[in-house]
């Protein structure tokens, strides 16, 4: 069954603005990860937040996790045209080897 559900499905912003994407999931998780996929290319791991963490930063990325609401958000500050891509959240049920469960993704377009 589908775990992560991102919203919005598509987001278009001007360069320099902030972009916020949300993800909800249904079952207990060990960690939640965000990935980026540039058009037709591979998945790039952006950031991982564990279930006992509430917020994490990496460069222009800020991720929050609310396990009580089973939701996460990804904030990209000062967006650039190069940030244009699809963004996916993925949940891991444990810290072991179970497969990741991905959401449908948010298509972000940053207009220069």
């Amino acid at each position: 069954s589908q775990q992560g559900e991102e919203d919005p499905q598509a987001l278009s912003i001007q360069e320099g603005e902030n972009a916020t994407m949300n993800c909800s999931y249904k079952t207990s998780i060990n960690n939640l990860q965000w990935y980026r996929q540039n058009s037709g290319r591979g998945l790039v791991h952006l950031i991982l937040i564990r279930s006992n963490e509430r917020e994490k930063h990496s460069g222009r990325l800020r991720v929050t996790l609310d396990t009580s609401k089973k939701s996460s958000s990804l904030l990209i500050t000062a967006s650039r045209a190069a940030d244009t891509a699809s963004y996916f959240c993925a949940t891991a049920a444990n810290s072991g080897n179970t497969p990741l469960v991905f959401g449908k993704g948010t298509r972000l377009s940053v207009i220069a």
Partner: protein
Amino acid sequence: EAGVTQFPSHSVIEKGQTVTLRCDPISGHDNLYWYRRVMGKEIKFLLHFVKESKQDESGMPNNRFLAERTGGTYSTLKVQPAELEDSGVYFCASSQERGKGGYTFGSGTRLTVV
């Protein structure tokens, strides 16, 4: 260390033909996963190898798909015969035992069935 390598990066085949995708995981990673994203939809899990054994193949769509990992090193995913709906991007990922170091994805193979 070298990352996860997939090839070909892009394959265009006709309906009914056979295609074999290959994934070379990071050396020493026991766990290997196949995922795919079809027609801009969500990324879906296909199967999971632990070494050469299939741990979970619940995501394999039908018997036209066959995955192997001989010797527990690289893996192949064969689609035979290919159908139009098989078009999409096929991703491979690997991880160490017990998830140490997280998952590393390859760049994917874009499959186009015409």
